[in-house]
C-alpha cells in the first residue's frame, strides 16, 4: 500500500473523528448548561439527584460508559441494536462531557459576585435577562481556559470510539498497521491528533483574546 493510498484511506477516519468531536460539542455544551441549572435548582431533590448523576458519570471510565450505552438497550430491554453504534457513541460522549461542562459552568456561575445579581434586580432585569445578559457573558470569559482543556482532552478521547469498533482514525491506524505491517499509520494518526489540538488551542486563544477587553 502506497503512502498516498494509506493517507486517503485514513482520511475517512479523520473525518469520522472530527464528526465525533464537533457533534459532541454541539450536544454537550448546551446540555451541560441544562445540567448545571438542575444542579443549582432550588429543589433539593432535583439538585441531589443531579449531583449523584454527575458523580457517576465522572466516577466511571468513559470506555465503560460507551459499552453500556451501546449494549445496554440489548441486555436491558432486548432491543435490536443494529445501526445504534454511531448514535451510542455520540450519546456516551455528549452525556460524559456535559457532566464535566456542567461542573465547570457551575464554578463559573458561583464565582460571580452576588452584587451583580442585586444590581440587575434593582434595575428591573428579569431573572432570565440577568442570567443571559449579565451573568453568562462573564462566566464564559472566566471558564474559557478550563473549557479549552476539555476540548483538547476530547480530541484525544475520540479514540475511545475504538472500543465499539467504530472506524475513526485510531481504529483505522491500528487496523492498517496490522494488515500492512507498517508503522506509518501510527505516525499519521499522531500527526493528525497533534495538528487538531494545535488548531483547537489556536482557536480558543483567539476567543480569549476577543474577550480580554475587560477584566
Amino acid at each position, binding site marked *: 500500500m502506497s503512502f498516498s493510498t494509506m493517507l486517503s484511506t485514513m482520511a475517512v477516519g479523520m473525518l469520522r473523528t472530527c464528526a465525533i468531536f464537533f457533534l459532541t460539542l454541539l450536544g454537550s455544551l448546551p446540555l451541560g448548561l441544562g445540567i448545571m441549572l438542575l444542579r443549582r435548582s432550588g429543589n433539593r431533590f432535583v439538585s441531589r439527584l443531579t449531583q449523584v448523576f454527575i458523580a457517576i458519570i465522572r466516577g466511571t471510565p468513559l470506555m465503560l460508559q460507551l459499552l453500556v450505552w451501546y449494549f445496554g438497550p440489548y441486555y436491558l430491554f432486548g432491543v435490536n441494536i443494529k445501526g445504534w453504534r454511531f448514535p451510542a457513541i455520540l450519546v456516551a460522549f455528549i452525556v460524559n462531557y456535559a457532566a464535566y461542562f456542567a461542573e465547570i459552568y457551575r464554578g463559573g456561575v458561583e464565582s460571580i*459576585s452576588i*452584587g*451583580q445579581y*442585586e*444590581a*440587575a*434586580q*434593582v*434595575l*428591573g*432585569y428579569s431573572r432570565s*435577562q440577568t442570567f443571559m*445578559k*449579565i451573568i453568562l*457573558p*462573564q462566566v464564559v*470569559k472566566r471558564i474559557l481556559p478550563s473549557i479549552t482543556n476539555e476540548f483538547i482532552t476530547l480530541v484525544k478521547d475520540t479514540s475511545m470510539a475504538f472500543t465499539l469498533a467504530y472506524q475513526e482514525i485510531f481504529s483505522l491506524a491500528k487496523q492498517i498497521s496490522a494488515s500492512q505491517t507498517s508503522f506509518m499509520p501510527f505516525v499519521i494518526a499522531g500527526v493528525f491528533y497533534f495538528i487538531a489540538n494545535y488548531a483547537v488551542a489556536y482557536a480558543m486563544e483567539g476567543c480569549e483574546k476577543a474577550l480580554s*477587553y*475587560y*477584566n
Partner: protein
Amino acid sequence: MILEMNNIRKSFDSLEVLKDISLSVDSGEVVSIIGPSGSGKSTLLRCATLLEQVDGGEIRYLGRAACTEENGAPRYASPSELKELRRAFGLVFQSFNLFPHYSVLKNVMEAPMLVQKRNKEEVRATAMGLLEKMGLESKCDAYPCQLSGGQQQRVAIARALCLKPEILFFDEPTSALDPELTGEVLKVIKQLAEENMTMVIVTHEMPFARAVSDRVIFMDGGVIVEQGEPEEVFGNPRQERTKQFLRNYEP
C-alpha cells in the same frame, strides 16, 4: 409620600436587626441615615429596595403597596405589581456593582431600553446628558475596569438615574473610595439634592450629611433613636446615644 415604611421588622435567624422601624420620605426630601456599624442601616435600605424580605410591616411607594401585613405576616404584592413598583426607586451600592463586560454607556443605557422598553435614541440622549452631568462624557466608551472608583460610582449614579426613579437610595456611596475621591461623588449627590431629587443616603460622612440633608436619622440597635433637622441632630442631640456616637466624629 414617595416612600412609606411602617413597623418594619427583620431578623436574621435569631438576630433581630430591624425592630419596628417606620420611615416616610416626602417628595424632594433628602434623608440621611447615620449610626454605628451593625445598627441595621443597610438592612433597612435592602428591605426598602426589595433585596431583602421583611418579617413584618408595610412598604408603599407612591401610595401603592409593595408589602402589607396580614395577621402578623408580610404579604408581598404580585410579581407584576412589584415589577411596576421597582420603577419607583433606584439604589447606589457601596461597591458600585457596575457590569464589567459593558462599556460605560451600555451600563447606563441597557436597563431603560430592556426593562422600560424606551426608545434607543431617547435613552442615548438621556444617558449622555447624565454622563455629562457626572463629568464623564469623555468616558462613555471606556470599560469600568479602566475607571477610578470615584468615576465608577458616578457611572453607577448615572445608571440609576437613567431609569428616572422617584427616589434614589445610597448605601455608603463613598466608603469604598480613597479619601481624595469621595469629594467628587459627594459633589454630584449634593447637586442632585439641589435639583430636589428625593434621596435616602446612608453615610458616615457627617459634614456632608449635615450640609445636604433635610432630615437626619440616627439608628442604633435596629431602632431609630433620634431624627430631626440636621442642625438639631448634629448641633443639639437630645439622646445620650446620639451624643456618644457623634463624639467619635468630632474633629
